[in-house]
C-alpha cells in the first residue's frame, strides 16, 4: 500500500495564499476587478445623482433661499435613488452566468461573501456619491456649515442603504423584471435612514449637536451589518433554488 499521507497539501505556498485571500477578500477583489473592467457602469449612478439634483431647481424654484432649505433632503433623496438604481445589478450577472450558484454551493461562509459583495457595491456607489455630495451641496446653496454633516451622514448612511437594498436585490434576482419591484420592496425600508440622514444635515446647518444623529445612523449600520447578510443569504438561496 502507498504510504503517502492523504490530505497533505500539494503546495504549501498555495495554502498560505488562500488563507491570506479568504472568502471575504477574494469576493471583494473579484467584484472590484469586474467593475473596474466595465468602467462606464461605474459612472452611471453618479451621473444620475447629479441629474436628479439638477431637476429640483428647474422644477421647483431656482431661488437660493428656497434651495438652501430643501438641499439636505434633496441630496439625500438623490443619493437614495442613485443607490437604489444601481442595486438591481448587484447579483444579476452572477445569477445569469451561474457564479451565484457556485458561491452558494461552495464551502465558504455565505455571510462573508455576501458582506464582501455589498462592501464592493458600496465602494463603487455609496462612497463616490458621498464624495460627490459636497458639489451638489454647493449647487443647491447648502450653507458651508452643513457640508461636514452631509458628508458624515452619507458616509454612515449609504452602507446601510447598500445592505438593505441588497436584500431586495437578492429577493428579486430570479425575476426577469426586478427593476420596479425592487424599489417597491426597498423604499419603505429606506425611510429611517433618510429621516436621520437629512435631519443630521439640517442639524449641521442650524448648528445643533450632531452626535445623536450620527449615533443612530451608526446603530442602524451596525444592525444592518449584523443582520442584513443573513437575510441576503437566505433570500439568495430561495431565489436560486426557486
Amino acid at each position, binding site marked *: 500500500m502507498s504510504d503517502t499521507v492523504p490530505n497533505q497539501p500539494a503546495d504549501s505556498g498555495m495554502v498560505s495564499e488562500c488563507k491570506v485571500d479568504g472568502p471575504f477578500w477574494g469576493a471583494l477583489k473579484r467584484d472590484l476587478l469586474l467593475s473596474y473592467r466595465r468602467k462606464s457602469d461605474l459612472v452611471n449612478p453618479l451621473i444620475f445623482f447629479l441629474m436628479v439634483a439638477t431637476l429640483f431647481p428647474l422644477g421647483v424654484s431656482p431661488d437660493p433661499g428656497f434651495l438652501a432649505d430643501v438641499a439636505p433632503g434633496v441630496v439625500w433623496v438623490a443619493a437614495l435613488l442613485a443607490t437604489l438604481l444601481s442595486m438591481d445589478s448587484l447579483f444579476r450577472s452572477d445569477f445569469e452566468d451561474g457564479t451565484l450558484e457556485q458561491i452558494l454551493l461552495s464551502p465558504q461562509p455565505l455571510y462573508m461573501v455576501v458582506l464582501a459583495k455589498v462592501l464592493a457595491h458600496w465602494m463603487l456607489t455609496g462612497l463616490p456619491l458621498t464624495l460627490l455630495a459636497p458639489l451638489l451641496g454647493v449647487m443647491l446653496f447648502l450653507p458651508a456649515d452643513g457640508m461636514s454633516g452631509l458628508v458624515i451622514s452619507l458616509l454612515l448612511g449609504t452602507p446601510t442603504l447598500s445592505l438593505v437594498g441588497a436584500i431586495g436585490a437578492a*429577493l428579486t434576482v430570479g425575476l426577469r423584471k426586478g427593476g420596479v*419591484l425592487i424599489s417597491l420592496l426597498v423604499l419603505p*425600508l429606506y425611510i429611517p435612514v433618510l429621516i436621520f440622514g437629512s435631519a443630521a444635515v439640517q442639524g449641521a446647518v442650524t448648528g445643533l449637536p450632531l452626535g445623536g444623529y450620527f449615533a443612530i445612523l451608526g446603530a442602524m449600520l451596525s*444592525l444592518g451589518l449584523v*443582520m442584513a447578510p443573513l*437575510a441576503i443569504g437566505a433570500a439568495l438561496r430561495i431565489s436560486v433554488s*426557486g
Partner: protein
Amino acid sequence: MAEKKWMPRWFYQLASPRWCYEITGKLLPIFAIAAVATLLVGTIWALAFAPADYQQGNSFRIIYIHVPASILAQSCYMMMAVAGAIGLIWKMKVADMVAKACAPIGATIAILSLATGAIWGKPTWGSWWVWDARLTSMLILLFLYLGIIALNSAIENAQTAAQSTAVLALVGLVNIPIIKYSVDWWNTLHQPATFTLTERPAMPSEMWVPLLVMVIGFYCFFAVAMMLRLRNEIIQRERRSSWVRDLITG
C-alpha cells in the same frame, strides 16, 4: 423508544392542509356569528348610545372604526410575519398560505384606517392629511403590505413566492419599530394610543366599552376573512390531491 415531542400535537396537525381545511370549516361559522354579533352591537352602541365627545361632538364617533382598523392592521402584519417565519423554519405549507392570506386583508384594513383617519382629520385638524408621525408610519405599513403583495404576485412558483415573501415580511418586522420611532421623533401631532394593555383608558367606560366590542368584532371579522382566503388557497394548491377531488365532485 418514545419520540420526544417538542410541540403539541395540534401544531403538527396544522401542517396538514386537509386537517386545516376541516378545522377552519368548523370554526368559520362560530367566528362569522361572533363577528356579525359584535360588529352589530358595537356599531349601534357606538353610534346611538355612546355619549358625544365634549370637544369634538359627534365627529369623534369615527374612532369606533378608526382605532380597531389601526390596531388590526398592525396585528395582521405581525401575524403575517410570524406565519412566514413558521413557514420558513418548519417548511409548513399551511403557514405559507396563512401568510399569503393575511397580506391583502392587512393592506385593505390599513387603507380603511388611513381613510377613516383622513375623514376624522378634516373636522378636527382642518385638513385631510398631515405629515404626522402616526399617519406616516401607517402609510409606510401600507407600502410594506403592497411590496409584499407585489413580490408574491411577481414570483410564479408558489413555494418560492412564499419563502421570499416571508423573508421580506421578517425584514419589515425588524424595521417596523425603527420606522415607528424614527417617524415619531421626526414629527408628531396625532394623539397617543387610545388603548394600551397596561393602563386604563383616559375616556369614560361608556365610551371605551363599545370601542372594545368593536375591536373584538374587527378581530373576529379578520378571522373570518382570513379563513375564507386560507380555505380558498388550500383548495387551489391541493387541487391535485384526492381529498380535494372528492370534495369537489362530492
